[in-house]
């Protein structure tokens, strides 16, 4: 496997513009004001053909909401999602739904809950083809057999039920189901975190192979930064419904500019050192009552008065394409550089 060359600005297969998804929550009955959960609030994303975009953030950061919106399962409050030149609409017209289904698919986290226990693998893979108008029996059989081979299962395993497979094999079936309609984009939602540790490498390798052989584009959602670094070409970091940093994988992991990204990376335990983990302080704030100014300011060690005042920082893109939502990122970068040279000279 080789490092992909930086691509020229060829056409985007996915564009998300100013996406916002707000959920109204309860209240109302006794005159309490209706509260609004801003699960996603103004997200811009783009995905190039053949690219893997890592989407990183803690639970509640809105990354799954972004994924569900791209799949047309959630109605955006604001903004546009354009997939392969076509705007995603959630009017549930059958033709629109099907067209989207042939373009974007998803691999779920839990290989146990994501397969229908009462359907054989064959049925799970054949039904989507029939729904999408493939009627010739021989073609259906061919495509199912080819897909099983692609994901490393034997054709004779097709007539078994999900409970006859191990977790890793189930995830292979889940991948086969996602790919059976030849989609262009696959959203991988924590595809290995529910699997046994010794099985994860198999699935990661498989996903990367399939991306190359089938020319797929991935959105890789994961909290395991090691996996994201290994798989992604670009990485977007989300915090409380917004993107706080977005850039080339090497930039993100070697020169993280946002204090939150820095905290995420620092929190990963180093197995070779018996050293304390870097702590950030505090929990994720309540998304119903987000902090003033920068959402990360209550937990940020660099926060100053400007960070806590409205309006909050905007996502600013540097000339090299690295975008950061932080008032003080340059100052912080300078300090970190200084600190690392100091510790290096000691």
């Amino acid at each position, binding site marked *: 496997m080789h490092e992909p060359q930086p691509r020229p600005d060829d056409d985007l297969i996915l564009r998300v513009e100013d996406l916002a998804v707000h959920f109204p929550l309860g209240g109302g009955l006794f005159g309490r004001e209706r509260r609004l959960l801003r699960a996603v609030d103004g997200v811009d994303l783009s995905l190039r053909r053949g690219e893997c975009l890592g989407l990183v953030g803690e639970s509640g950061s809105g990354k799954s909401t972004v994924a569900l919106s791209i*799949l047309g*399962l959630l109605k955006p409050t604001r903004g546009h999602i354009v997939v392969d030149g076509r705007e995603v609409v959630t009017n549930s017209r*059958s033709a629109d*739904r*099907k067209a*989207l*289904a*042939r373009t*974007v*698919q*998803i691999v*779920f*986290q*839990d290989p146990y*809950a*994501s*397969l*229908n*226990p*009462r*359907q054989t693998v064959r049925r799970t893979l054949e*039904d*989507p083809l029939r*729904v*999408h108008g493939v009627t010739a029996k021989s073609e259906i059989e061919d495509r199912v057999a080819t897909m099983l081979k692609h994901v490393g299962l034997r054709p004779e395993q097709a007539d078994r039920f999900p*409970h006859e497979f191990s977790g890793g094999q189930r995830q292979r079936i*889940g991948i086969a*189901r*996602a790919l059976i*309609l030849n989609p262009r984009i696959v959203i991988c939602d924590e595809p290995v975190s529910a699997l046994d540790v010794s099985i994860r490498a198999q699935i990661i390798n498989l996903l990367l192979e399939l991306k190359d052989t089938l020319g797929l584009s991935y959105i890789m959602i994961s909290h395991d930064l090691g996996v994201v670094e290994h798989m992604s070409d670009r990485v977007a970091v989300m915090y409380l419904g917004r993107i706080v940093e977005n850039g080339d994988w090497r930039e993100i992991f070697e020169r993280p500019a946002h204090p939150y990204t820095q905290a995420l990376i620092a929190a990963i335990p180093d197995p070779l050192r018996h050293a304390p983990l870097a702590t950030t302080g505090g929990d994720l704030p309540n998304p119903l009552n987000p902090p003033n100014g920068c959402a990360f300011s209550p937990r940020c060690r660099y926060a100053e008065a400007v960070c806590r005042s409205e309006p909050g920082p905007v996502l600013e893109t540097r000339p090299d394409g690295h975008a950061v939502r932080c008032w003080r990122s340059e100052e912080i970068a300078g300090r970190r550089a200084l600190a690392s040279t100091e510790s290096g000279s000691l």
Partner: protein
Amino acid sequence: MKLRANLVIGGSLFALAIIVGLLAPWLAHTDPVMDANLMNAEEPPSWTWWFGTDGQGRDIYSRVLYGARVSLTVGIVSQLINSVIGVALGLSAGYFGGWWDDVVNALTNLMLAIPSLIFALAIMAVLGPGLTSLLIALGLTNWSFTCRLARASALSLRNQGYVQAATVLGYGDLRIMVTQLLPNMLGPIVVIGTLGMGSAVLSEAALSFLGLGVRPPFPSWGSMLSEARDQITTAPWLSLFPGLAIFLTVLGLNLLGDGLRDILDPHSRSRRT
């Protein structure tokens, strides 16, 4: 797999009732309606008259055999109607949610608020007595539990990964409900259905006892009980045998329901495998 006692006993009792009903023409000693002979009236059970005879000299044994046909038809058909209505309403309500869910919920609560037998009585009053009216009356009044169950299952199942996957694959709503939700909720619904059959057999008996069921002279267990109530002290066998038939059939159906629940309950299954 260990066979459970309740499943075996319940299944056998229910199967016996069905076989008896089907083979009644061959097993019966006499015609249940025509072979009346006042010379033999109110004979107690004996080697000739196994279950005795009634006031018109008809063979109780033969009448109980034929009576199984009515009781079981009512039990099975009316419960099927209930199950179909309950599943259709509950499944769609749980899947779609929104105003349709509110409508179905209101309807279900209404059904639960009125005792179903009273409701059935009202329908019978409009339709008049007879087997068809009985099937309709009992088939329209007992779906609320199935509906509740189907709705609750649909609510929890619709968030399962495979249902989301089907949506993402572009399946239509009907296909998702039929292929993804229904097969995974069928177990408990079959259990409720079996128990419901038992109560339908009892309801048939009750309505026939009140003279609203199958019209005499054709026998059903309920109408036989109804006719026998005046002779309960003088000729107890008249009520004993149809009563026993009802008791054993309902007991069988309840045991069968319990047994099915044990098998179909995913927890007990995962423990076994």
